[in-house]
């Protein structure tokens, strides 16, 4: 389901079974999996939005839409690392809030403080990730509970600090990261910085997932015991995934300062939206399956859906309901498609009578299994 791998063909090794097909067939096969299907879904939704409001299809407004969606897409990419390794990160929304409030209160109107505070925010983000990761892996507390605890603690601290009201207003130069863009571009009019940041994050994520780290991370999510026996250090692997997730939340927070301003409720519900986007992208809760760009595409599909509902004049209060129906339908569909897509040759020969594939039915439940078990 990934792009053709030149290294395998170039080095003269026998390509693995999935790579023997022609490029066209492989692409078709990839689209049939939930991870590929989300791109088709995104395309269809985009078409529907443009049909209801043709001005949305202009390059200028499209690129602005990409900029608007960037924070949630970046959060989804971060959440992907954690989910694919078989864990959960519920603290994401609280991290976003913490970073936004920190930026608002520490930078103030002083341009000289932008860079130091930016570095401090990244350090704080990485530290939260390390705490989440170490508690999950070394103390063997389920990640669901660890990140729930971090969420309560962080949001409590932020509310205590701010008194629950919107406080602080960072310098305009800092807000430009979320608001501004490169002006006077020929076709697009403007390229928002968030879109560029998203591009950079997505590229880095794809590279990371093709490196040994990414490969072992997926392996650890699919079968932690096998990954451990193969010699990978599980605690360090998963801790890095949590750090990446918190850092992604930090970047999303930096962008949101420009968009939404400083308020303690800015990141509320971000974790569930990010998890929804990841699952919509066909990534399996419990780990071991899914592609990182599909998670980002899931975020775009979700935002396009909301845009479509807006243009269709559906009351915003029904947004939640539609989102709920979509989630259930997407997961129900994805579960079947992964099972059908994994063994194409055997699916025809009486899959109904054969006992369920043990590797799919006994997969550990997401975040419910402790650290390394």
């Amino acid at each position, binding site marked *: 389901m990934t792009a053709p791998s030149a290294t395998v063909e170039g080095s003269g090794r026998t390509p693995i079974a999935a790579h023997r097909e022609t490029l066209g067939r492989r692409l078709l096969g990839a689209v049939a999996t939930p991870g590929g299907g989300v791109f088709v879904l995104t395309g269809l939704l985009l078409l529907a939005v443009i049909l209801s409001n043709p001005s949305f299809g202009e390059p200028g407004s499209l690129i602005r839409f990409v900029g608007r969606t960037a924070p949630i897409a970046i959060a989804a990419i971060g959440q992907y690392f954690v989910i694919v390794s078989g864990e959960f990160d519920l603290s994401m929304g609280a991290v976003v809030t913490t970073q936004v409030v920190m930026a608002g209160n520490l930078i103030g109107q002083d341009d000289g403080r932008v860079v130091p505070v930016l570095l401090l925010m990244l350090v704080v983000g990485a530290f939260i990730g390390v705490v989440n990761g170490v508690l999950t892996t070394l103390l063997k507390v389920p990640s669901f509970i660890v990140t729930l605890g971090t969420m309560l*603690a962080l949001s409590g601290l932020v509310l205590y600090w701010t008194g629950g009201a919107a406080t602080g207003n960072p310098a305009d130069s800092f807000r430009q990261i979320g608001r501004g863009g490169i002006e006077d571009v020929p076709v697009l009019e403007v390229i928002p910085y968030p879109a560029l940041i998203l591009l950079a994050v997505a590229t880095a994520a794809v590279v990371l997932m093709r490196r040994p780290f990414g490969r072992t991370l997926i392996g650890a999510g699919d079968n932690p015991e096998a990954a451990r026996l193969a010699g990978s250090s599980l605690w360090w692997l998963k801790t890095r995934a949590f750090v990446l997730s918190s850092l992604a939340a930090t970047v999303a927070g930096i962008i949101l300062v420009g968009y939404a301003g400083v308020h303690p409720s800015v990141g509320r519900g971000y974790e569930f939206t990010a998890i929804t986007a990841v699952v919509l992208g066909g990534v399996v809760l419990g780990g071991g399956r899914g592609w990182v760009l599909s998670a980002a595409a899931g975020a775009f599909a979700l935002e396009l859906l909301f845009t479509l509902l807006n243009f269709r004049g559906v009351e915003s209060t029904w947004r939640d309901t539609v989102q709920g129906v979509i*989630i259930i339908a997407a997961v129900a569909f994805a579960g079947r498609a992964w099972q059908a897509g994994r063994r194409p040759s055997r699916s025809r020969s009486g899959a109904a009578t054969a006992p369920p594939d043990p590797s799919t039915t006994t997969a550990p439940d997401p975040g*419910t299994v402790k650290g390394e078990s």
Partner: protein
Amino acid sequence: MSAARTARRRTPLTSTGIVFIVLALVVVVGALLTASAGRNFFSTGNLSTILTGTSVLGFIAIGQTLVILAGSLDLSVPFVTSLSSLVAGGIMAGQTSNVAAGVFMALAVCAVIGLVNGLVVSLLDVHGFMATLGMGLIISGYLASNYQGSHGSAPRSFRLVGATRIGPVPISVLIMLGCAVLAILMLRRTRIGHHLYAVGGDRSVARLSGVRTAPPVIVVHVLSSVLAGMAGLLLLARLSVGSPTIGSQGGYDLMSIAAVVLGGTLLAGGKGNILGTLGGVAIFAVLDNVMSVMSVNPFLKDVIRGLVIVVAVAVYARRDAHPRLARFDKPSLTDSVVQEAR
């Protein structure tokens, strides 16, 4: 040394035991802190406040325990709670004659929601986390679209359920404990209870052993929603109006899961019990009470709650990290002799 090890293995401290030791510790520390603030922790009024604090979360946590034992999760409870309070409040409309109808309708609506959850989880194979998150969103959209503020009203006769107490024990807590006893009986004495543990422990093994895996999952989801509905009725009795935000304000979804895990139930399912959950709920109630008495900043309360959850779970999470691998332990001397003899 090996003798000592086997002896320790034979009389293990169960996780429920640890929960109640932690609870006792929290009570002692709480009593000392309360005394230092010049108040009596064990006064009738204070005990009754603590017990009242356990009732709403208690109902929801009992249901959540059942669902988690089956290897699923229920994130839709806060919205079910709100919906139940609104439905019952709307039907009662302040008339004593409508109480029975209101209670029945509210619980029936909840049962249907739970049935849908159960069917989606067991038949469509959607993970409980996503299925109930989706169901929660669906209900939340319905609530936001149809109710702008509080709605309906409870008659005085129904409000008495929330206010009456026998000695220091409120009636609502007795009802909650009654539900807990019924749930324990179901887990210990009925076929579906045993199947529940089997399905939660390992679904495919249960299936290969001839257990039908769908019915227990459906039943626990129905029970969880009905218990969340009862929590909604209790909140209606206390506030005398139904409210569309009462459930989500309480954060009952995540707090009930935290209470269940605090009570020693494995989040992966198949291991745990109701008694531990009640201990977990009591720990939260005592903690809240002590923090109120000490007049801790309300925002810092969340910080302390978060820390307690993580620390308490860390204490015994290390113990049974590989609960199902015990039988593969190094065989004892007698075992190896038996093996050799064969």
